[in-house]
């Protein structure tokens, strides 16, 4: 696993700013990450945002925008190597088919590309929430084959934990930026807000739990579908078996009577096997649920700490 270095002053701040201006609704904002690969690290040095998809902008060409942007950035010596993309998320719900497809196409082209997930709501609560993910090689294999049937997945032996691997992020700044930081600290008059120590959290918790419940509902529907499919399959197997047996019996009887045996009919045409449901969605939902649970657990552990601190404060009063 390659740790990920981010010369982050640009990337994170630009992402944050972009989200603030554009994504005030629940839409996601996306953009491209630029950087280079150094030894065993991936350095991200710059990024630029993608405009939103608007319906009345039919002739807008995304690829062209990207090309032009990269060409222009090359003129000013900014690294123009495409190393990944970023997306904002809403309460942690980003494991979706679209993300999988995009990340697959990126990773197919560039081996070490990552997707950076930025959670603005969590960040507003006090701690910068940036996570970098990459598809595991196993998942890459499956996506390449496009074989999403249960048998295919069973062969690859993949579970929802093996879908994404998280890459650790380290922030690195240059000396000049350190100077800038000292200057800002000097001049800036905004008081240090301790949002992290905020105790009112039930709103956030409620939302997360609601999303979790929706997902679990989806999951259970999927499971029901799968169960009906496997039941149908086994019923069909039984029917086939019975038919074969009857055939054999009849043939035996006819032989005993001296008549020519009935022709063997093609069974496969008679009993069409039911369509196996694609398992990819289930995997994704499971992964998403896992993510939600992780977030909720992290959140509750932080809150427990805060509650105990409040208790200590009261105790001294």
């Amino acid at each position: 696993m390659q740790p990920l270095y981010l010369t982050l002053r640009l990337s994170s701040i630009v992402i944050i700013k972009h989200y603030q201006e554009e994504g005030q609704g629940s839409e996601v904002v996306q953009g491209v990450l630029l950087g280079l690969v150094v030894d065993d690290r991936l350095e991200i040095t710059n990024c630029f945002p993608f405009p939103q998809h608007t319906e009345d902008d039919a002739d807008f060409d995304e690829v062209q925008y990207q090309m032009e942007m990269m060409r222009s950035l090359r003129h000013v010596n900014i690294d123009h190597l495409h190393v990944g993309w970023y997306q904002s998320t809403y309460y942690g719900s980003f494991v979706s088919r679209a993300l999988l497809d995009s990340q697959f196409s990126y990773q197919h082209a560039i081996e070490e590309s990552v997707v950076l997930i930025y959670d603005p709501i969590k960040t507003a609560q006090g701690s910068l929430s940036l996570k970098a993910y990459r598809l595991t090689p196993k998942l890459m294999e499956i996506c390449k084959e496009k074989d999403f049937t249960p048998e295919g997945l069973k062969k690859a032996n993949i579970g929802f934990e093996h879908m994404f691997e998280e890459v650790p992020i380290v922030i690195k700044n240059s000396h000049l930026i350190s100077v800038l930081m000292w200057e800002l600290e000097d001049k800036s008059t905004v008081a240090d807000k301790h949002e992290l120590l905020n105790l009112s959290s039930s709103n956030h918790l409620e939302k997360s739990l609601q999303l979790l419940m929706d997902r679990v509902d989806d999951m259970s529907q999927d499971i029901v579908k799968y169960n009906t499919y496997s039941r149908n399959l086994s019923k069909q197997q039984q029917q086939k078996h019975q038919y074969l047996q009857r055939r054999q019996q009849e043939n035996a009887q006819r032989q005993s009577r001296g008549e020519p045996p009935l022709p063997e009919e093609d069974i496969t045409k008679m009993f069409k096997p039911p369509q196996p449901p694609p398992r990819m969605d289930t995997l994704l939902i499971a992964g998403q649920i896992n993510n939600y649970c992780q977030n909720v657990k992290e959140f509750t552990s932080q809150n427990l700490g805060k509650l105990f601190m409040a208790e200590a404060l009261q105790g001294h009063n």
Partner: protein
Amino acid sequence: MVATGKPGSAEESSIIIITIIIIVFCASDGGGQVALYVFTEAGELSSFSKMSVFGPVVKIHPVVLASICDSYERRNEGASRVIGTLLGTIDKHSIEVTNCFSVPHNESEDEVAVDMEFAKNMYELHKRVSPTEVIIGWYATGFDITEHSVLIHEYYSREASNPIHLTVDSALQSGKMNIRAYVSAQMGVPGKTVGVMFTPLSVKYVYYDTERIGVDLLQRTRVTPSRTKGLTSDLSQVAGSAARVQDMLTTVLAYIEDVLSGKVTADNSVGRFLMDLVNKVPTISAEDFENMLNSNINDLLMVTYLSNLTQAQIALNEKLVLL
């Protein structure tokens, strides 16, 4: 009405020249107030009486400064400074600078060439993403305003009405990174010699809330020797925050000790703040607080249990499917 400047240091010589010219200007004009802010060595503003604020306040986001520093680091060989366009929004009383991009240019002793096609292209691209941003000026690294700046500024006045000019001293010529903003104004004797004067504007830094948190994290990188920092999560963050509050409390306590022992004279306003602070801890009866605390803790524990259960459930499901 006459304005004078105090010669604070060598850097103020240019201001003195400007002030003399202002005297000439006013004399010929015969009236009107001229505002002049003089930068003292500490970089703070000091204004004289009978002066009015000239021009709007410039509010800068940290992303702009970070981009400028970055483009300075990536400049071509032989270039001593970089320039670029500033994008943002204009208000009645303030100009907010929210984004910027650098523009390639060549500068030699007697001529300046700026790639304007490039600037236009970039602006179009940026406008696609954020349609509310307009060109509000340009920036340059480096300490002084040179004659070339005047030319470039003239170009930018064609793009935007009354553009502002931002200088960032990334070469740290005066030992500090001075960040200043200017607006140009015509001056001189009308009809004869005209010139351009750059009047400074007051600069403020504004952040979005989330930006503040991001910048906070970056601030912490400047203390580590390798200038790196991992992104921590979970309880350690709360611990870090609590440690910071504890530090602040110890500082306050030390101050109070000093005042009590007479080393430092007591300051009433500080005392009032301290009173506020102590009174902010809400007085709830012990029983009520205990109830609240317990119910909250119960909620959180239940949620943790449920999420663990869900995770176990889907793990089981996986295993069953793969049978």
